[in-house]
């Protein structure tokens, strides 16, 4: 508790410090390559999304290949400001781990990344990248050996090392102030995208679509549109097998119930006794039984809708985007792409849909090759 109270205080001071904001803005622009592009996916929209006009927010083009760098640069600067010398992180797909290792290399901090053993296997490329960047990757063999267990292990490290270590949580989950702080660092996605859509299309989109695991890229792009009542906010969760069994999915908001996990009250995939369920998704980054509490609030308030997208739908979206746009999306982002395909068919050719393409899929080429047998 003392550690998160200190963090909340330090973050509050930092966000109101023009020097901190200026330093972060400079890194986002000159290191992470922001603003990222907004690309119109014309062939994809015509051939796969019911003729709807589809715009892609290209977080895959940010340095390290995903939106994760936005949050990490903020937290690592904060680590320096707090005088801490070591950063730990959990990672599922490895995108957050790579981003954290990158920022630590840049700013000269020690970096340890916890990753479920199952995920180190299916995202081997990112394990190599992290090690190349000087980070120590610790495979976690507890539980289901995925993201949730990596997060447990990172918390266990943190209670022991809190004096010199910052725990850089990668999503909008965990105890306060993490959900708010990570949201704030990711808001840049939606702020940029809203302006870019207005410039390109002359109007707001009908819907904003993003994938949701913990929910950081989704909250990042949703946030600027929350006051725009006419804009639907649609989160695509990992439906896994897609047969409605919670334990064969990671569709927390669609199939879960309220509970407490990792220091937050939120929707949780849990059994009748409050035990967290094992989850399944083809995408390591969405394979998590909780979700950021702000998404739970957006769901209960009726402001955002959450849909389940199965492994097979996501792989269809993955293939469609590769073949029509020349963009290989991350498997996580492929859930949003598939969600846009379904939505485009529902809304028809007059629709304008903004999709957060949260990451690139180099890391997933082995999984996709095995899936498609190519």
């Amino acid at each position, binding site marked *: 508790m003392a550690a998160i109270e200190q963090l909340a205080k330090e973050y509050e001071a930092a966000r109101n410090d023009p020097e901190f904001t200026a330093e972060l803005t400079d890194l986002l622009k000159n290191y992470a390559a922001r603003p990222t592009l907004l690309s119109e996916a014309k062939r994809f929209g015509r051939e796969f999304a019911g003729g709807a006009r589809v715009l892609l927010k290209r977080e895959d083009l940010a340095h390290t290949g995903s939106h994760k760098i936005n949050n990490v640069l903020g937290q690592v600067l904060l680590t320096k400001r707090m005088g801490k010398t070591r950063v730990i992180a959990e990672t599922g797909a490895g995108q957050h781990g790579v981003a954290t290792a990158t920022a630590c290399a840049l700013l000269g901090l020690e970096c340890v990344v916890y990753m479920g053993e199952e995920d180190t296997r299916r995202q081997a490329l990112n394990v190599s990248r992290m090690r190349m960047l000087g980070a120590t990757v610790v495979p976690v063999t507890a539980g289901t050996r995925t993201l949730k267990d990596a997060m447990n292990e990172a918390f266990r490290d943190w209670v022991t090392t809190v004096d010199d270590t910052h725990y850089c949580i990668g999503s909008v989950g965990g105890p306060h102030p993490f959900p708010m702080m990570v949201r704030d660092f990711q808001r840049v996605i939606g702020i940029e995208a809203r302006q870019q859509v207005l410039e390109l299309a002359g109007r707001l989109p009908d819907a904003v679509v993003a994938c949701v695991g913990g929910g950081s890229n989704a909250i990042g792009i949703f946030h600027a549109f929350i006051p725009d009542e006419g804009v639907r906010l649609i989160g695509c969760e990992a439906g896994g097998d897609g047969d409605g069994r919670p334990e064969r999915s990671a569709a927390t908001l669609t199939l879960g119930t309220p509970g407490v996990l990792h220091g937050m009250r939120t929707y949780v995939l849990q059994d009748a*006794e409050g035990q967290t369920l094992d989850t399944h998704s083809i995408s390591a980054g969405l394979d998590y039984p909780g979700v950021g509490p702000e998404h739970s609030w957006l769901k209960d308030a009726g402001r955002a809708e959450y849909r389940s997208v199965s492994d097979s739908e996501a792989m269809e979206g993955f293939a469609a985007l590769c073949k029509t746009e020349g963009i290989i999306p991350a498997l996580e982002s492929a859930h949003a792409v598939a969600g846009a395909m379904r939505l485009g068919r529902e809304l028809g050719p007059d629709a304008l849909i903004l999709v957060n393409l949260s990451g690139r899929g180099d890391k997933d080429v082995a999984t996709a090759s095995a899936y498609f047998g190519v």
Partner: protein
Amino acid sequence: MSTVAVAFEKAAAEDRAALVGYLPAGFPDKQTAIRAALAMAEAGADVIEVGLPYSDPLMDGPVIADAVYRALKGGTKIADVFDLVSAIADAGTAAVVMTYWNPVDHYGVDAFARDLAGAGGAGLITPDLTPEEAQPWLDASDARGLDRVFLVAPSSPPARVAAITGLCRGFVYAVSLMGITGARDAVSSSAAGVVARIREHTDLPAAVGLGVSTGAQAREVAGFADGVIVGSAFVRRLAQAGTPAEAVAAVRDLTADLAQGVRRG
């Protein structure tokens, strides 16, 4: 007065620290856990802390985390926790349940308090329930006359120690070091300070947990605390035993060693 309070008073009257032993329900199986707990009671444990196995035990090191994972995979349910509590209470020993909050929240706080009291349990140790979020449990524990044990850490500032101890009943759990459960080579140098800071705010007994595994360490802790909590050392013996009979015997032996240790010289 709760059975836990009575147990601490009895220990104090005998000029020793109380011995609190931890066992998770359902490990290595339901019946062996019950036999081990009864052996623990016979061999001198004053209070038995029954672990409610949970899927995400953030405060626990590998020994307990692996044990509760196996207990859950073996089908352990909350009903089994209450059965273990019942068996200990029927044998005349105080039983408290150590539980992460989500299973209680999901069961329903009032229903959980009712069923715990019905089983003869004295109260709960709640490692991940913060005072800020505790109101439903404060109400339920008041209604059922149950003890509530919150944890004070070496990092807890004075205002927080005051708030935490103000809500405790039965005893206060003094976390000996910044870390997770598991045996350590030496008693943490911060343990005595945590106990001293607790005593500035309450007359409740302060029991030290984390990292105590031997009779000699128990003796050292008994020099400055009202209670000594031992967990991983018991669970390790259960995990390493070849048969249920060996497991029960190993728990009995360790309890006897620790019960000598808490006698202060």
